[in-house]
């Protein structure tokens, strides 16, 4: 069954503004980042929890040291970090705008989301690239096996 609506105008017409806008960029970003995040996060979960023998039990400093000594995993993790935080924060912004109507509280909530995003992105990026898998003063039994050869 099809119905033709003669005059599909509406009390709140869709904005037909052409050209760049923040909301449009956000809409595109949510979709583009989502597609990339599927690959990065499914890969992250499959590698860490399923394909590594022992799964969750195998995760310790030595495991992470072994991974982050490899630029491949450094870039994997940093891309996943930036995209997931920006995607999640932008999604939380939408939700706050939907439910929080008092201007003051909305401002505080949006500010908190933005501050958390900046701090976590900086912290995570710094850690991934300045991380030393073989800290000289640490107990050697906790380190990745290749540290013994240094």
């Amino acid at each position: 069954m099809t119905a033709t609506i003669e005059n599909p105008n509406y009390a709140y017409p869709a904005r037909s503004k052409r050209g760049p806008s923040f909301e449009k960029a956000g809409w595109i970003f949510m979709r583009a980042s989502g597609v990339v995040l599927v690959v990065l996060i499914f890969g992250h979960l499959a590698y860490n929890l399923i394909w590594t023998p022992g799964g969750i039990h195998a995760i310790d400093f030595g495991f992470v040291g072994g991974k982050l000594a490899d630029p491949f995993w450094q870039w994997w993790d940093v891309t996943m970090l930036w995209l997931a935080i920006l995607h999640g924060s932008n999604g939380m912004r939408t939700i706050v705008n939907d439910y929080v109507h008092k201007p003051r509280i909305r401002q505080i909530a949006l500010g908190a989301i933005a501050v958390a995003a900046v701090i976590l992105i900086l912290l995570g990026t710094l850690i991934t690239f300045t991380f030393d898998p073989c800290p000289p003063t640490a107990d050697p039994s906790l380190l990745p096996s290749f540290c013994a050869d240094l």
Partner: protein
Amino acid sequence: MSETSSSLTLPDPAPQKTSFSGTLYRGNEGMWSWVLHRITGVAIYFFLLVHVLDTALIRVSPEAYNAVMATYKNPIMGLGETVLVGAVVLHALNGLRVIMVDVWPWATRNQRPLFWIVMGLVVVLMAYFVPNHLINVFSPMEGGH
């Protein structure tokens, strides 16, 4: 196009009857997909805030990182991880459905069966993940982490 408000007076389309009729907003698959997408998105967001901080402990010391990771290895957390992965899989596949429905007319017309395909794929992926993960969670730890 002329400015009239004729469409404002069109009768509302009849909602599909579900067993929830009369007790809840009578939404269809589209509403459930939206509610689940929103809840899982928020849940993953709060996990991620904590997760970046726990990963940051690798910069403090091996002992600090291993101590916190040890808490992820008890069976209760193992069940929590299972729920988290379920939420990620659901949000991810439903997100792909939302993207397809937005950009691809065929998917827009078929968004309802696509929702059930998403739910089916979630079940299939979790049928692979859950046994694998729970075997790890419940097997004795070697090496005395």
